[in-house]
């Protein structure tokens, strides 16, 4: 009986002791140091739609090439620089002109020094049916560093003479279309 009353009187104390001895165990909060988040963003890039007219000069003669320049300051941003670990540029070119081409992409840094370059060969379409060419350019390690230091993209479409191809005129049938997207792999760490 005495023991019971002792227990009753000190039951509150037991609560407090219980609370004091409660603990957080079997945990490792430093695991958060290893947190890595790897989102992948897919973004539409450049689109080109050209007919035969685009490749003719004022006297309606074929030019050697056409080119265009885009200033890309996005790759030099801090976020991209710190967290981008891989990039794929995915192109789909549909050609129904009876003319072969070479599409050339040149990446320049702010001092106009060429950092990276690649090209896509496009066959001529003998019967003007759409010919689809897919190309994926992967940027990792050295090539990714080159991409990150680039601020300008020069796109050239170079006319290529082939044995079955024709010479373009204003009446040539067909067109050349290019669509592209970038797939950007990020790795975000603490």
């Amino acid at each position: 009986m005495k023991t019971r009353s002792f227990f009753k009187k000190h039951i509150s104390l037991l609560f407090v002791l219980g609370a004091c001895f409660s603990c957080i165990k079997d945990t490792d909060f430093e695991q958060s140091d290893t947190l890595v988040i790897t989102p992948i963003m897919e973004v539409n890039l450049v689109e080109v739609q050209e007919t035969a007219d685009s490749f003719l000069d004022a006297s309606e003669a074929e030019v050697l090439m056409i080119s265009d320049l885009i200033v890309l300051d996005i790759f030099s941003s801090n976020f991209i620089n710190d967290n981008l670990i891989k990039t794929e540029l995915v192109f789909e070119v549909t050609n129904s002109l009876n003319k072969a081409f070479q599409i050339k992409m040149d990446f320049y840094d702010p001092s106009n020094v060429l950092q990276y370059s690649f090209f896509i060969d496009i066959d001529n379409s003998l019967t003007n049916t759409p010919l689809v060419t897919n190309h994926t350019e992967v940027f990792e390690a050295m090539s990714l560093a080159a991409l990150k230091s680039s601020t300008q993209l020069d796109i050239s479409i170079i006319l290529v003479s082939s044995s079955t191809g024709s010479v373009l005129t204003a009446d040539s049938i067909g067109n050349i279309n290019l669509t592209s997207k970038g797939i950007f792999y990020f790795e975000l760490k603490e």
Partner: protein
Amino acid sequence: MRWLVFFGVFISLHAQNKQLLYGFTEVPQQILLNPGAQVDYRGYIGVPLLSHIHFNAGSTGFSAFDVFADDGKDFNQKIRDVVYKLDSKDFFGFNQQLDIFSVGLSVKKSYEKTFFISFGMYQESDIFSYYPKDYAILAYEGNYNNLNKRFDLGQLNVSAEVLSVFHVGVNKKINSKWTLGLRGKVYSSIAQASSTDNTGSFITVPGTNNNLNHIFDLDMKLQTSGVSFLEDPSANKGLDILKKRLLFGGNLGVGIDVGFTHQPSPEWTVDASLQDVGFINYSKDVKNYILDGYLQYDGVQSVFPQVTSGQTAQDYWDEVEDDFEELFKIDSTTTSYTKWRPIKLNSSVSYNFGRKVDKECNCLSKSDTTFQNRVGAHLFAMKRPNHLQWALSAFYYRKIVKGLQLKTSYTVDAYSFKNVGLGASAALGSVQFYVMADNLLSYQNLAKSQSVSLQLGFNYIFKNNEN
């Protein structure tokens, strides 16, 4: 007049539901939960800054143990499991209260008519956020492999506030069956920020010709008041502003608590209260940020300048940049706004039994002849921006010996289905001591708990010699 003076230390890590304190007549803080509670004492004084210290932190859907357990599993996989397990109805909450002062005393107008007046001031902080699942998925995966998935930007729903509350309550026992109470409150908001009224989406859909079409639809709003002092690097000035706002210098609001206790028979008790039926009008130091825009982006058109004079790809690119700048341009206003306080409901039904009877008739005996046991059910509900947060408890209250009372509860709520709590109020000599602990089953390892609670207090009781 007999006074009870409470030296209370009241510490808790607790859901806002205080099911152990509610209806625990021996602890005066219960009158803040129900202004119409039964009051068995003549008065109390809470020790400034020590009479009620309360912290609460909880999350639904996961516990710290789920993520941080030292179990050799890959941490990133565990995070991934949580990111996908939770949904946008899950929430995180933090609440803290600190009593600055509190006083209660009975006022006798005549022999029959006695009012119990209580007043005081407390400071409160509240942070509440729903889990913005679509943001988490977007950050986690990106939009790749998520074609046609609509990311709901309206899931961002977060609010935070620090305020002080001055309150005066009156409690009146009308007759043997009814006790009514009313408490008036003046809120002084020190700082507030909320973004609770958002709509919008981001979706990537396949376009024609193997293109992607990115559609941004944004209608987002962040309302803030009283946070401009954060921009001021001078810490002293910030402290001065805080002190001023604590004492009614902030954005003001008013509210009431109402409550009753009804005893249709000595055995049965029904009681209920509504807390914080009120609002705050924010007009001082207001800054609102609005993000409102719509954009479809499907790439940059390259136009070769050698053959078509005029526009170049760069022009297109500049145009796209301008469009994005316009889309993400944040407008700010200083329009005042009004917010309702989060209203809370407490209600319980209980049955008293086991009256103590002395074996020998002794008219001079001072032994306690009240009921020794009480069993009942308690409901708590609280208005949150998108839902009612609720908790249902069954409880058993027992007077063990004179001066020692116990209460145990089993609670089902959004955090847990196995919440067992235990509370005790004990008088050892002149010192009254109480302790209330919630989620006892988790106490061996707090990390496994989604919410935890611990309250304890020391009370010193002064008794008149005439007793």
